[in-house]
C-alpha cells in the first residue's frame, strides 16, 4: 500500500539517501587513498581526477554533502529547539541555502 509523501517525508528520504551515498563515497575514498604513500604516487593519483568528468562528480558530491549537512542542522533544530513548529520553513531554508552554496561552489570550481 502506498502512502502520500509530504514535504517532511522527502527531507527524510533525501537525508537517508545522501547519508548512504556519503558512506559509499568515504569507503571508496579511503580505499583509493590507502595505496598512496609518497608524493609521487599521490600526484599520479590526483592526475587521474584532474579532468572535467571528475570535477563534475566532485561538484555533485558537494551538493550531497551540503544538503546532508544543512538538513542535519535542521534536524538538530527540530529535536533540541522549537524547530518542529516551523520545520517546513526550515526545509525551504535548507533548499535555498543548498542551491546558493552549490552555485557558489560551481563558480569557484569552474572559473
Amino acid at each position, binding site marked *: 500500500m502506498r*502512502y*502520500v509523501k509530504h514535504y517532511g517525508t522527502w527531507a527524510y528520504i533525501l537525508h537517508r539517501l545522501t547519508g548512504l551515498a556519503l558512506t559509499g563515497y568515504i569507503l571508496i575514498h579511503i580505499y583509493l587513498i590507502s595505496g598512496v604513500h609518497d608524493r609521487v604516487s599521490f600526484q599520479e593519483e590526483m592526475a587521474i581526477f584532474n579532468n572535467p568528468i571528475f570535477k563534475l562528480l566532485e561538484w555533485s558530491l558537494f551538493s550531497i554533502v551540503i544538503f546532508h549537512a544543512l538538513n542535519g542542522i535542521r534536524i538538530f533544530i527540530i529535536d533540541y529547539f522549537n524547530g518542529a513548529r516551523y520545520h517546513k520553513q526550515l526545509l525551504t531554508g535548507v533548499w535555498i541555502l543548498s542551491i546558493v552554496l552549490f552555485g557558489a561552489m560551481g563558480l569557484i570550481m569552474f572559473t
Partner: protein
Amino acid sequence: MIQVKVKVYRFNPEKGDKKPHYDEFTVEADPTEKVLDLLHKIKWEQDGTLAFRRSCAHGICGSCAMKINGQNRLACETNLKNLKDPTRVTIEPLQSLPVIKDLVVDMSDFFKKYEIVKPYLIAKTPPPSAERYQSVEDRQLIDESTKCILCGACSTSCPSNWKNPNFLGPAALLKAFRYSFDSRDEGAAERLDIVDQNDGVWRCHTIFNCVEACPKEINITWHISELKKRLVSRDY
C-alpha cells in the same frame, strides 16, 4: 451533485480471502458531503457486507480513521470538495495494523503501546484537602496534547512504525508527554525511563507524517522533541 468513483479495499479472512482486493462503487454525492457519507451510501444502498468503524461521525470518537487517497484522515471530517479530485476516492484501512475485515483493523497493538507509557496521573503524595491545583500556565503546556482522540492516524502513518512494529509510535509518545509534563503528575521519572528505551523516542526520525495525519492538528513531533530534550537534560 457529482458522481464519485469510490475504490474500497476489501479483505475478509474469515470468508477465506487469501489476499485483499479493491471494489469500485459509483456514488452520487454532494461535494460538501464527507467520505463517511460515501461509505454509508455504499453500505446502506449497494453492498451491506462492507465493514468499517464509525461512531460519533463528528470528529470526536476517532473510530473512522482510515487511509483516504493515500493519506490517513478521519472519514467523517474529510470533505469531498477539499480533495484534489472529489470524483475519485480510494479508501483503505490504516496501514501496518492487521485487517480484521475490509476497513476494520485490529487496534490491540496500538492500545498496548498506549498502556505501556502509563497514560494516567501518578500521585505519590497524599491528596490535598481540595483539588490538586494547576495554574493556567501549567495547563496551557499540555493543552495541545490533551486534544488527542486516539484514532491511530498518526502511529499508522509513521514510517518508523511500519518498519519497526516495536516502536511505541507517536500516539503513545504524545500521551507520555501529556502526563509527564502535567504539573500534577509525580510519575514522570518512571514514564521517561520507558520512552528512553531503544524503541522509544529515539526511533522518531522527524518525518512529520504524524503531524500531517493528525485530524486534531496536534504537532506531535514537537511534543516528542520536548521529551527528547527532557531526557538529555535530566539529572541522574
